[in-house]
């Protein structure tokens, strides 16, 4: 960035708010990764055949191991009387828990139909929790499409866990958001090296490791879509650490520095610890960025990762965001990101998919980030696409994954060049 042109960010960019058909997943989809992350948890969706079919389709290929999620499919007789529906639910839960004695946490997950018929899953969870205590803890959250979009399902799940976390006065750092195990281990190693310990994570891999929380807890998010969990932790007295999200070398460094500053850790020690991973990430990203530099990118709303990713791609990879769509823009959590994102792109919140497709076709971006329903149709129109869901299902956080993250965007462009060599130059 040149010194004589002042940096202008997206902080004050007006947001285009749209209302119409949304081409997004509902919050149930988060179960696909949460059920693997929490190894003694089972997610029981109380819903319709559509919910079961969605989970199957979103899982892409079925998981060979018996999944730790299922759908209690509502039938006509359940709709006729809620008393019967509750009795049926109790019976199905009892059967499930007797078949899976390894389950320690059971999440009753609300869906569109269960919300509309006003089946009270919080009361059902209380009732079942009392019945199956102390072996199984029963919680509930909603992953319904009328209330949650895709990653908001994880937010609803973690927020539901917060009131049930044990209390503590200990001054501990809590890192919030599901990460792939390998990434979480890298992060914990770096946090230990800068002296940030003891560090807890939410969600924990097993229910026996649930983090305690209290007025001396400092917490920081690793995922941008955890607004409700953020608020729930503050209700428990925990104090939030505000930072950009740890995508790319810059995001990761600012994230660790925010932790260090909040905990009063010496800056020189932090810099010393981060120097080597920073250098590695910069070098690796630079190699991938050759493919990305100067290319335009258009984000359809999907996971709320869009703004942090646009910031990474603009600042570290030289891409030019044309439109950055997000299903929901959380002003407070996004403030550090918007302050870094260079002015230029349209920021849009919500969706009217037909109008947004019109804009994408007019802009003809070099790369379009969108859901699976839109990707092949846009490819058929000659637009290179990146499936957004892969960004959620792939290890992309922190230093060692920074180049992998850039690579996810570079690969469709490289592929286009390989398959249509005449269009490449």
């Amino acid at each position, binding site marked *: 960035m040149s010194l004589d042109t002042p940096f202008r960010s997206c902080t004050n960019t007006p947001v285009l708010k749209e209302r*119409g*058909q*949304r*081409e*997004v*997943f*509902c*919050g*149930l*989809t988060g179960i696909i990764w949460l059920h693997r992350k929490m190894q003694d948890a089972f997610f*029981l969706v*109380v819903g*319709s*055949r*559509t919910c*079961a*079919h*969605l989970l*199957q*389709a*979103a899982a892409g*290929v*079925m998981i*060979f191991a*018996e*999944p730790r*999620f*299922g*759908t*209690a*499919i*509502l*039938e*006509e007789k*359940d*709709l006729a009387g809620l008393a019967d*529906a509750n009795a*049926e639910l109790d*019976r*199905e839960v009892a059967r499930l828990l007797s078949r899976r004695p390894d389950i320690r946490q059971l999440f009753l997950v609300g869906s*569109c*139909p269960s*919300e*509309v*018929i006003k089946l009270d899953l919080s009361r059902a969870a209380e009732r079942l929790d009392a019945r199956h205590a102390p072996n199984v803890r029963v919680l509930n959250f909603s992953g*319904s*499409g*009328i*209330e949650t*979009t895709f990653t908001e399902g994880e937010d609803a799940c973690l927020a539901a866990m917060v009131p049930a976390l044990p209390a503590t006065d200990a001054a501990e750092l809590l890192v919030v958001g599901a990460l792939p195990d390998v990434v979480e281990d890298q992060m914990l190693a770096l946090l230990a090296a800068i002296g940030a310990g003891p560090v807890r994570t939410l969600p924990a891999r097993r229910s026996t490791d649930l983090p305690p929380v209290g007025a001396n807890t400092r917490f920081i998010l690793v995922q941008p879509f955890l607004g409700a969990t953020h608020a729930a932790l503050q209700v428990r007295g925990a104090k939030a650490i505000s930072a950009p999200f740890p995508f790319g070398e810059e995001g990761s460094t600012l994230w660790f520095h925010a932790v260090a500053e909040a905990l009063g850790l010496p800056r020189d020690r932090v810099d010393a610890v981060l120097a080597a991973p920073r250098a590695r990430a910069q070098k690796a990203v630079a190699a991938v960025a050759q493919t990305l530099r100067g290319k335009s990118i258009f984000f359809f709303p999907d996971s709320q990762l869009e703004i942090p990713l646009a910031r990474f791609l603009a600042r570290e990879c030289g891409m030019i965001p044309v439109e950055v769509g997000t299903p929901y823009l959380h002003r407070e959590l996004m403030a550090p990101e918007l302050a870094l994102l260079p002015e230029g792109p349209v920021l849009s919140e919500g969706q009217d998919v*037909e109008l947004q497709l019109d804009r994408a076709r007019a802009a003809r971006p070099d790369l379009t980030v969108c*859901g*699976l*329903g*839109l*990707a*092949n*149709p846009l*490819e*058929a129109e000659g637009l290179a696409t990146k499936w957004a869901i892969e960004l959620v299902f792939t290890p992309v956080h922190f230093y060692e994954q920074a180049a992998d993250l850039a690579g996810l965007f570079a690969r469709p462009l490289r592929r286009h060049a390989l398959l249509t060599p005449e269009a490449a130059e």
Partner: protein
Amino acid sequence: MKLTLWTYEGPPHVGAMRVATAMKGLHYVLHAPQGDTYADLLFTMIERRNHRPPVTYTTFQARDLGGDTANLFKDAAREAFVRFQPQAMIVGASCTAELIQDDPGGLAEAIGLPCPVIPLDLPSYSRKENFGADETFFQIVKVLAKPLPRTEAVTCNLIGPTALGFRHRDDVTEITRLLASMGVAVNVCAPLDATPADIARMGAAHFNVLMYPETAETAARHLEKSLGQPFTKVVPIGTHATRDFLAEVATLTGLPLPAETGLRQPWYAASVDSTYLTGKRVYIFGDGTHAIAAARIAAKEIGFEVVGLGCYNREQARPVRASAKTYGLEALITDDYLEVEAEIARLQPELILGTQMERHIAKRLGIPCAVISAPVHVQDFPARYSPQMGFEGANVIFDTWVHPLVMGLEEHLLTMFREDFEFHDAAGPSHHGAKASARPDVPAETAEASSGETSGQKMPEDAAQVTGEVIWLADAERELKKIPFFVRGKAKRNTEKFAADKGVTAISIDTLYEAKAHYAR
């Protein structure tokens, strides 16, 4: 309430989408919350369609409930008409919208769109995907197809192929060719690639070819009743069924039977290298139509033994039960894949013919498998021409089913040299390209294994194994492991049954071979 882990069929509105997506010039306005759009990816990803399904989702949210979801629907329907200019529209509700009872049909009528609007009433809490497709196609036909003078030449309609169907695209091509060889032209193929205007022309055909009863039987019956068009009852999957189908068409039309061309399956099955296929035990599960066809091919055209047969769509329960009876079997009618898995584990077949669910079951149990029916995954929408119907379909099926098996000579070598450390059964068929690994269960030193423990209770891996009430002695257990995996399950089951029948509680090597002699055929 019923706990479901995986499901064979989606909800009924997905069946309606299969019809809408197959057609051109038709638009579906679906009253649904956000998230139901997941269904688009079934078509764009699994089937690799290069267009979005022609579906507008009203996308209501929690804050709209109790407010004006009805107006949301009306706006969506109006805007969809303006943007897509369809010749006709279908309107309906997904499972959630069914609960809020907005009556999409009435709302669409109220706004007076300048095209036919066909309301769908698909009960989400009692019916499933195939019903949804069948009912949707029936409603479209009922509204749009009118009596017309018959075409001068003999023509027929092909009915039933949809989007996301198992090999529907190629079946249509194959049946069109087959009928052309008799001098029968296709008037309309629907829903696949038909426009609403084409549906209106259906009445000109002399008869209907019901390709898939799952998705078009109600329409076929309606057309028979209202337009006097007979429909074919034989589904031409397999050599025998294709011949029966041609005979049925000859009877309906009075045209002579065509010469058979391109059919290689009967010779491939008769050639001596296929001897090893004799009596191989197969388990068959899928939609009713494909399961019945597969059983006939397996038993009569390839010479397998059908040891289990079932379907997941209750609508076809009766014909599947009748078919199973002809093989001396009780059909399994269920949409619970855990039940299917338990049945397969119990029967220990040598080959499974099923859906993508059975493919997963097969992988888990280590049994060869070929896919014969929807639901299927992306790899079952091949780039190449690969029909199931007609004579080429019979050829394709022969190749597809034989491919997962160990080849005949290889099977013999494995049986002769069963303890070779590299060339062993667990390495898998050699033509599948997986890297052969060293035998995973190298037999322990004989001396070590035979010394000491024989009671079998303390060291199960080394001594006898308890299965049910009958005990396997250690040496018999080792002998069993020498039997190639593709028959080991059968040998184990037969021996245990033999032992139980004879009142033997501990199986020795002698028991194993006595059982073998007993079951010899």
